[in-house]
């Protein structure tokens, strides 16, 4: 690492004391702190998932007590949603790449960025404390009156943990919005922004507008538990369904917090893999923003059978179909972007194409449950469980891992073993389908979710699903192993090993502390492919040679 230009040395070498990491203001280092955090929570949530799948191998609830099972799926849900999926792409890759992609030195509020990481860590501590104290059994949805009056578990600790982590996500959102508005480099107009930046913008808006409602709702749960104010308590004149309105007003947009950055990220991967401009850039941008906005109008589709008025359900149903239109645009455009491309199937491209396939399956089944008449039978069954796992795991996690592979050389300056990575990606695709496709069939057969013991006719499919889960577990552990291995033994990466477009590839790998020597000037739109290998414009400081 010899980058000793005016931009400062390689950010990884800019100090190796613990203090230089924990008190850093560098968005790149904060991204790495976040990565460590979400990896930890992903493993925690994964262990809970493994326990659940293990329990469901047999129809009888014979592995653990019902309480333990309930706590396991609650822990899985809380951790995976708030401590892994919501921060996963925005806080790690988003944090790392946003300033690089728009040619900035850092985010707009570096200290706020660090603070939001500590909020995340603080919320995480409460959640771990909750687990150590004995766990919570309400499900991640905290439905009243169960959570307020009937659960004897540590609801308060969990609620406080999620409450705190919510503020972390609000602060990240504010930071991103201000950064994108004010720190774009010269020539980086709005419609030259990479789609990943657009998606972060959409996500940031959703975070800022939706998360306060979550905070309010959780505060009301706390007040209800502590003082019995009765807002959700029918015995005091409250309405438990009101809670569901509040909760889903946040939690449905939260799904878009998880999937929107994945969509943006995959657009980057597909264009780089196909060496082709994205098909229909403007439509991609509008559909991203469309999902961000319309995503706020559809929360009632979680409540079709919850005692919501049938007329409200009709309104929410038609709005939910609209989301389907936006998603369809994206899937078709990704596919069309391959046309006349020069396609290489690197590991990250396999992840990206896997994402498109799984997201499409998840999205199409979303149309099933947007149709009220079908949702009546399918909601609260494994059909829904499978549907949202296809979106969140098949979608977001595949995209996240694809992004990690794609930018790994940029982040660490090292190459990972390509063959292992391809094998893991393919294994993950098949493992995922084996795990979750049987769950669609289980839902169609009528198995309700959150069941510890089940009727014997559901066993075959559950066993298949559990078998798939074990493959999936292996597939998830493999990247962890070889990526860590590559940190020490991987070949050194050049500035642009994939010959990709995008400002982040025009600086060294790993980038210097201040990202760019001279602020880069943008002259064309994003995805300026094909990039002739010999003619990469070297207006940036000399890339560090391997």
């Amino acid at each position, binding site marked *: 690492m010899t980058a000793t230009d005016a931009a400062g040395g390689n950010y990884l070498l800019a100090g190796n004391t613990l203090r230089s990491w924990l008190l850093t203001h560098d968005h790149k280092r904060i991204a790495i702190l976040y990565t460590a955090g979400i990896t930890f929570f992903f493993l925690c949530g994964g262990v809970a998932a493994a326990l659940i799948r293990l329990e469901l191998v047999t129809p009888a609830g014979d592995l653990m007590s019902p309480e333990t099972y309930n706590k396991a799926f609650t822990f899985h849900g809380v951790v995976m949603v708030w401590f892994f999926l919501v921060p996963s792409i925005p806080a790690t890759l988003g944090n790392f790449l946003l300033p690089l992609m728009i040619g900035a030195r850092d985010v707009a509020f570096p200290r706020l960025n660090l603070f939001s990481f500590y909020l995340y860590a603080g919320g995480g501590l409460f959640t771990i404390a909750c687990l150590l104290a004995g766990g919570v059994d309400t499900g991640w949805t905290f439905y009243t009156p169960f959570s307020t009056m009937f659960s004897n578990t540590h609801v308060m600790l969990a609620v406080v943990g999620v409450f705190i982590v919510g503020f972390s996500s609000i602060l990240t959102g504010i930071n991103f919005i201000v950064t994108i508005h004010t720190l774009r480099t010269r020539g980086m107009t709005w419609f030259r922004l990479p789609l990943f930046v657009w998606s972060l913008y959409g996500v940031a808006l959703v975070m800022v507008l939706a998360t306060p409602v979550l905070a309010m709702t959780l505060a009301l749960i706390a007040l209800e538990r502590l003082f019995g104010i009765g807002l959700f308590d029918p015995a005091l004149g409250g309405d438990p369904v009101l809670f569901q309105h*509040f909760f889903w007003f946040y939690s449905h947009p939260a799904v878009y917090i998880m999937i929107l950055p994945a969509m943006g990220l995959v657009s980057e991967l597909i264009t780089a893999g196909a060496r082709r401009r994205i098909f229909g850039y403007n439509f991609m941008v509008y559909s991203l923003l469309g999902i961000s906005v319309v995503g706020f109008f559809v929360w009632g589709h979680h409540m079709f059978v919850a005692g919501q008025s049938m007329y409200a359900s009709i309104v929410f149903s038609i709005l939910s179909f609209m989301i389907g239109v936006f998603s369809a645009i994206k899937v078709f455009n990704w596919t069309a972007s391959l046309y006349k491309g020069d396609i290489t199937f690197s590991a990250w491209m396999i992840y990206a194409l896997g994402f498109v396939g799984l997201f499409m399956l998840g999205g199409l089944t979303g149309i099933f449950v947007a149709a009220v008449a079908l949702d009546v039978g399918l909601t609260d069954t494994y059909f829904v469980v499978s549907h949202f796992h296809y979106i969140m795991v098949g979608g977001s996690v595949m995209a996240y891992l694809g992004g990690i592979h794609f930018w790994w050389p940029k982040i660490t300056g090292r190459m990972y073993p390509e063959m292992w990575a391809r094998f893991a990606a393919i294994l993950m695709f098949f493992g995922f389908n084996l795990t979750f496709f049987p769950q669609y069939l289980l839902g169609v057969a009528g198995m309700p979710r959150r069941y510890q013991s089940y009727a014997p006719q559901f066993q075959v499919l559950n066993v298949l699903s559990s078998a798939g889960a074990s493959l999936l577990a292996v597939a998830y552990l493999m990247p962890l192993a070889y990526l860590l291995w590559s940190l020490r033994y991987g070949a050194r990466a050049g500035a642009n090993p994939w010959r990709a477009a995008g400002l982040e590839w025009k600086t060294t790998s790993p980038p210097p502390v201040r990202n760019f020597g001279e602020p880069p000037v943008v002259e064309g739109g994003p995805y300026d492919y094909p990039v002739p290998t010999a003619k990469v414009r070297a207006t940036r400081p000399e890339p560090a040679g391997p």
Partner: protein
Amino acid sequence: MNARTRQPRSHRSGPRPPSLASNLWALVALLALLGLTAGSAFIPMGAFNTVANVGIAVAKALIVMIIYMRLATDSPLLRMVAMAGFAWLALLVALGLADLLTRVPLLGS
């Protein structure tokens, strides 16, 4: 390492931040209104109780927005952001009411 060539954008934070005294007065006013809300609960006024309480709540919200959030004196951008927040809250209330107001009463045969 030049300064950024882009035209710098500055955050114009109003003429001046509200003074400590005005903050304290706002606090006192809020507490007084809180007392009024609590007090009104003891006076039976029928449906007018609700009207009074909503009125007091609006007054409180205005105090917070004008004095604490500086919406009156700060840049229009800030007002726009605050309005977006309100629009979203209105959305929650409107679609929530779409449920509550159209629930069909249950009638047996």
